[in-house]
């Protein structure tokens, strides 16, 4: 029996980075407040790492996101595997040139001579009263950029296993840590293998309808799935885990079986990754669908502060139940 440790998402990411650093001296860490002198990260993602691996491998930075990602890119093409923290996803907007024009493109533009094995992790998500500039889900932007992978786990084990894969990957990866997914604890095997990028997880098997979700919306979808089960609806719930590249095979196989799909994400519904998934399903499974594919996501609005508005902004279990009912006709 393998030993396990009870971890939440933050502790899981922390443990994964620590394991990678112990195994590979090329793994280095940077970001605002990441060293222990500064508290090991505002939420503790990097706690203990500078003490264990030294101040040269774990460096707190000024508030300079362009400089953070730039330094990470340079170190990466110089042979290192940097893990960079951008505190919140909205702050990637001040580093978008570095991420999009450089990290994602250098391998291609150099004809394969340089590579950027960089991992960026960043927190986001509504539901914790942080309002308009601290909670956006921008994964669709990165999915629409060639050369960068995006993971958005929903469980401690997935945070652990996907972080290992991101660090190990020879190309830039962005890990989205959703506030709502970081509270739950799970027993995670200490020797958990890396979880391959681009592979979805079937959370729940079922035959009537496929629900595709990721990040916090997996938790919401689980609640909906329970409610639907009670009504006798057999749901197949898929946690994408990796948003780009997403697991077409698993999703298409499921919808081929169920004939119905509901896609859920926290990001804006309009032009969200749900659009790509729906567009792909209709193209690949035309004629095999029993109902239109439904998409659920945030309304076309910035994230509001006031509690009832914030709740209405977020997809709720009932919204999913209603969407499933509508496709069941």
């Amino acid at each position, binding site marked *: 029996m393998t030993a396990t440790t009870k971890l939440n998402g933050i502790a899981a990411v922390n443990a994964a980075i620590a394991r990678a650093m112990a195994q590979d001296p090329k793994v280095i860490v940077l970001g*605002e*407040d990441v060293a222990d*002198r*500064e*508290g090991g990260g*505002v939420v503790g993602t990097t706690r203990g790492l500078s003490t264990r691996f030294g101040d040269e491998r774990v460096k*707190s*930075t*000024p*508030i*300079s*996101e*362009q400089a953070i990602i730039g330094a990470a890119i340079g170190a990466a093409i110089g042979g290192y595997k940097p893990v960079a923290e951008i505190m919140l996803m*909205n*702050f990637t*907007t*001040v580093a978008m040139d570095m991420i999009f024009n450089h990290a994602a493109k250098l391998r291609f533009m150099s004809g394969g001579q340089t590579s950027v094995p960089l991992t960026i992790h960043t927190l986001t998500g509504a539901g914790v*009263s*942080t*309002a*308009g*500039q*601290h909670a956006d889900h921008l994964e669709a932007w990165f999915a629409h950029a060639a050369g960068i992978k995006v993971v958005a786990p929903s469980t401690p084990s997935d945070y652990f296993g996907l972080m290992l894969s991101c660090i190990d990957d020879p190309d830039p990866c962005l890990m989205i840590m959703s506030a709502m997914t970081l509270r739950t604890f799970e027993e995670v095997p200490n020797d958990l293998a890396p979880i391959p990028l681009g592979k979805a997880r079937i959370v729940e098997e079922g035959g009537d309808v496929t629900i595709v979700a990721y990040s916090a919306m997996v938790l919401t979808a689980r609640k909906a799935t329970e409610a639907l089960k009670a009504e006798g609806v057999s749901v197949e719930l898929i946690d994408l885990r990796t948003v780009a590249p997403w697991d077409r095979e698993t999703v298409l196989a499921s919808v081929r079986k169920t004939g119905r799909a509901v896609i859920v994400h926290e990001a804006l519904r309009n032009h969200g990754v749900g659009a790509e998934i729906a567009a792909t399903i209709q193209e690949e499974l035309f004629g095999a669908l029993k109902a239109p594919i439904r998409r659920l996501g945030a*309304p*076309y*609005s*910035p994230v*509001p*502060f*006031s*509690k*009832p*508005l914030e709740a*209405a*902004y977020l997809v709720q279990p009932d919204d999913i139940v209603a969407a499933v009912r509508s496709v069941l006709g």
Partner: protein
Amino acid sequence: MQQTPVSNRPLPGPEVQRDIYRRMVRIERNDEAIRRAIKLGRLQMPYYSARGQEVIPSAVSVNLNQDDTICTIYRGIHDMVAKGMPLRPLWAEIAGRIDGTCKGKGGPMHLTHPESGVMVTTGIVGSSMPIANGLAWAAKLDGSQRVAIAYFGDGASNIGAFHESLNLASVWKLPVIFVCQNNRFAEHTRYEVGTSVDRIAKRAIGYGMPGVTVDGNDPVDMYAAAFEAVERARAGEGPTLIEALTFRFFGHVFGDDDKYMTKEEKAAAMERDPLPLFRARLIADGIATEGALADMETAIAAEVDDAMQFGLASPLPPIDELRRDVFATEIA
């Protein structure tokens, strides 16, 4: 760095000094009430208290008119209160209610009140500065004498937007004042860990702009620096960078454990609490009587209490507010 010799410095008259103190008390009582309400669970919000930094915006704001504008940051309620934002809609906003300045949609990090000149509150480090430039440009285009203030922290002086903003303000000679509230820390990062220069004011040299470092806990010093910068801006002579040294009493976000500094360091800084110090000085200098100050404080306490009651009693916004103000026209 230009520094006016101390002897030539503009001094705040008695009335102005009392006005500065009044603003400081409003800030401080309001801050205390917010912290209490959070502790009691009556407010749910991330709170970046500016307790300890009261002097800076108070001494700046006595030099401003109502139509002068400010852009401030998440730690900015002191800046707004000093500028004259009424407390009732402020409380309604931080409680997420419909009578809030922003109908509850912006919350504490995005409080806005154009009527009192509070144009933008941002949660993004550095982003108050580029927008303040635009307000200053508008003031210039209007042919007005208005000035714009950008408030920001020491940590924000390391982000790109700072650089671009100061450079643009200088080449365009904009009537804007960059007020850096240097409270020694950026979240948990000590000044010198993130900042490569001993005095942020020195960076003004790189923009051909006057830069001064002042004791941001000393109302007289702070007043003088603000006065000169405002005069210069109104005279069309362009921007100024003011670095105001201060300290935040409650860490980065209310609830912090302050582990990243020593107890002694914190205690020493808190001994320089600007409120009791300035209060004693006003009395000692014969500028105000104990009785007058006590009356002022009582009145302010009542105002804060009223605002809190008002804010917490205001209704929550209806859900269709999500469709309003995204664009001028409501979303269908």
